[in-house]
């Protein structure tokens, strides 16, 4: 176990360094911060002055080292737009994003678990085919369009739910469903194939031979073991889920990190964009790391084999 943890930890650090490099490169290698900051009619002298002021005359690795050491202390510079620290701006917007992601995850599980188990137990039946069809359609659905259609139906036509915003539990329903619909198809397929595989195992036969009821067999023996692959893949899909949350936020004007990032991109406010990208990626990597740890703990084959 110790070797496994060490190896995962090394990878964790490497990925975080890589993320900081990429976030740095987006602004400093692909683009030129001075050109983005100054008005288009600025003269050469102005350009030179700002170039020096921002420390851009130094070699790239010096600039990166400065960026990285500040970022480690939570200093991503000040927002070019509002002149407040970017880190604080992003942190303020973090809770709504986290709540939305969790709500989406719960919604996805609420849809995927029952349907996946049902499809597995009634394999090749009408229900199974229907579930497969829903999953295929769900995977092709652009979720920003799904969100807009939900708004048109439930907010504009039926006036049953608020079209956008944040606050009460009603505000959560449509965004959570939109995000859940994004993750549910994949989860459902995983649950289905996991349960099918496990229902063929010897210990299920043993459980049946002991005379346990079919319900107990499914719930206690099959479902629990089917959870391992589901947890792993859900953990790895967390980046996808956050990506989906970004899309969902922009559709529902949800006051999270993603809307902040999109606003900042429109305002060319790069310190905030950098900070948002780094923090979101950091969350994803940490969750992947945790999932690897949990799975390694549950299933000894993984930590030995990897």
């Amino acid at each position, binding site marked *: 176990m110790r070797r496994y943890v060490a190896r995962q930890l090394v990878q964790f650090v490497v990925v975080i360094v890589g993320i900081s490099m*990429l976030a740095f490169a*987006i602004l400093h290698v692909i683009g030129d911060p001075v050109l983005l900051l100054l008005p288009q009619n600025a003269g050469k002298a102005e350009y030179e002055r700002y170039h020096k002021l921002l420390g851009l005359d130094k070699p790239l690795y010096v600039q990166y080292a400065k960026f990285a050491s500040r970022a480690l202390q939570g200093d991503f510079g000040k927002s070019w737009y509002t002149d407040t620290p970017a880190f604080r701006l992003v942190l303020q917007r973090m809770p709504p994003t986290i709540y939305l992601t969790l709500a989406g995850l719960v919604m996805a599980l609420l849809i995927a678990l029952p349907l996946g188990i049902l499809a597995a137990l009634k394999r090749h039946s009408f229900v199974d085919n229907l579930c497969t069809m829903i999953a*295929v359609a769900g995977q092709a659905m*652009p979720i920003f369009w799904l969100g807009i259609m939900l*708004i*048109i139906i439930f907010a504009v036509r039926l006036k049953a739910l608020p079209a956008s915003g944040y606050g009460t539990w009603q505000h959560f329903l449509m965004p959570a469903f939109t995000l859940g619909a994004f993750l549910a198809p994949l989860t459902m397929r995983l649950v*289905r194939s996991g349960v099918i595989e496990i*229902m063929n195992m010897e210990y299920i036969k043993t459980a049946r031979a002991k005379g346990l009821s079919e319900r107990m067999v499914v719930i206690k023996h099959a479902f629990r073991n089917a959870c391992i692959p589901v947890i792993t893949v859900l953990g790895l899909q967390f980046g996808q889920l*956050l990506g989906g949350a*970004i899309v969902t936020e922009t559709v529902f004007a949800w006051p999270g990190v993603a809307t902040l990032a999109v606003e900042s991109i429109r305002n060319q406010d790069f310190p905030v964009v950098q900070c948002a990208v780094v923090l979101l990626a950091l969350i994803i990597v940490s969750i992947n790391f945790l999932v690897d740890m949990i799975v390694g703990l549950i299933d000894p084959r993984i930590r030995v084999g990897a």
Partner: protein
Amino acid sequence: MKAVAAGGNAALKGVGAHDGARGFDARRASLSRLWRLKWGLAAAALLLLIVASAALAPWLAPYDPLAVDIQHRLVPPVWMDGGTPKHPLGTDQIGRDLLARMLYGGRVSLIVGVTAVLISATIGVLTGLAAGYFGPRVDWLIMALVNVMLSFPFVLLALAVIAVLGPSLLNMIIVLAVADWPLYVRVIRAETLAICERDFVTAGRALGMSHARIVFRQIFPNLVSVIVVIATLQVARVIILESFLSFLGQGVQPPTPAWGNMLGEGRVYMLNSWWIAAFPGLAIFVTTLAINLMGNGLRDWLDPHMKL
């Protein structure tokens, strides 16, 4: 998306029979495979129709997609009150014909989707081959890079890069291609590692073949079907992402019609004129659905046991 081949319902009822996950009931399995292929074929036909209508847009479209007609703005589709057969799908906020814009809009999505996938597949396959073939050091370096790329929220990365480069069709293709390639690497690398263990590769080495020859003449041909399937499914993903970027105003710029920016513009009018946002979205949905079904069909046809 693991292709679980049909195995009868022994799993449910069977107390004694060991199902073995596939090949238990061969007749039923081949029937269900044929049934799935039928879906794939139908999807391919639908996709052909979509591609043809986009390609023939100048001849099919009843109007110029950019022609403004303020007098007939926000005309609903033909089946609603106030709709006219002149504008079967209605018009938008400045009276442009929606059907014409939909037909032209498809061109952008399809061109961006296919081009970006061709580029990203090339990068991804070459890197994946390198990671699998050239030993643990190269492998470690490439996989570290891939893990970094996969940890980024794909959407946010694309948005940030476009914000720096500026929105244009070419920039969007580049961004989508660059953001998309790591997905290929994982699969190609794993397959390459497995193939490298096979005897014919060892034989090739013993015969003194060059690395390039082994990689491209011995390993690569074994990967073609996997690549074709991933690339097909990836076109759908890229189209959705392109339309999202355009939806946010960071992709294809108006007045050029693209399904994404039509959806974004239509969002403002959804209170009274839902059709402006609804149809472009429906077009994206149907196209990606057809591509996904075709991709699944391709997978079943080429190799039903492919683990994708």
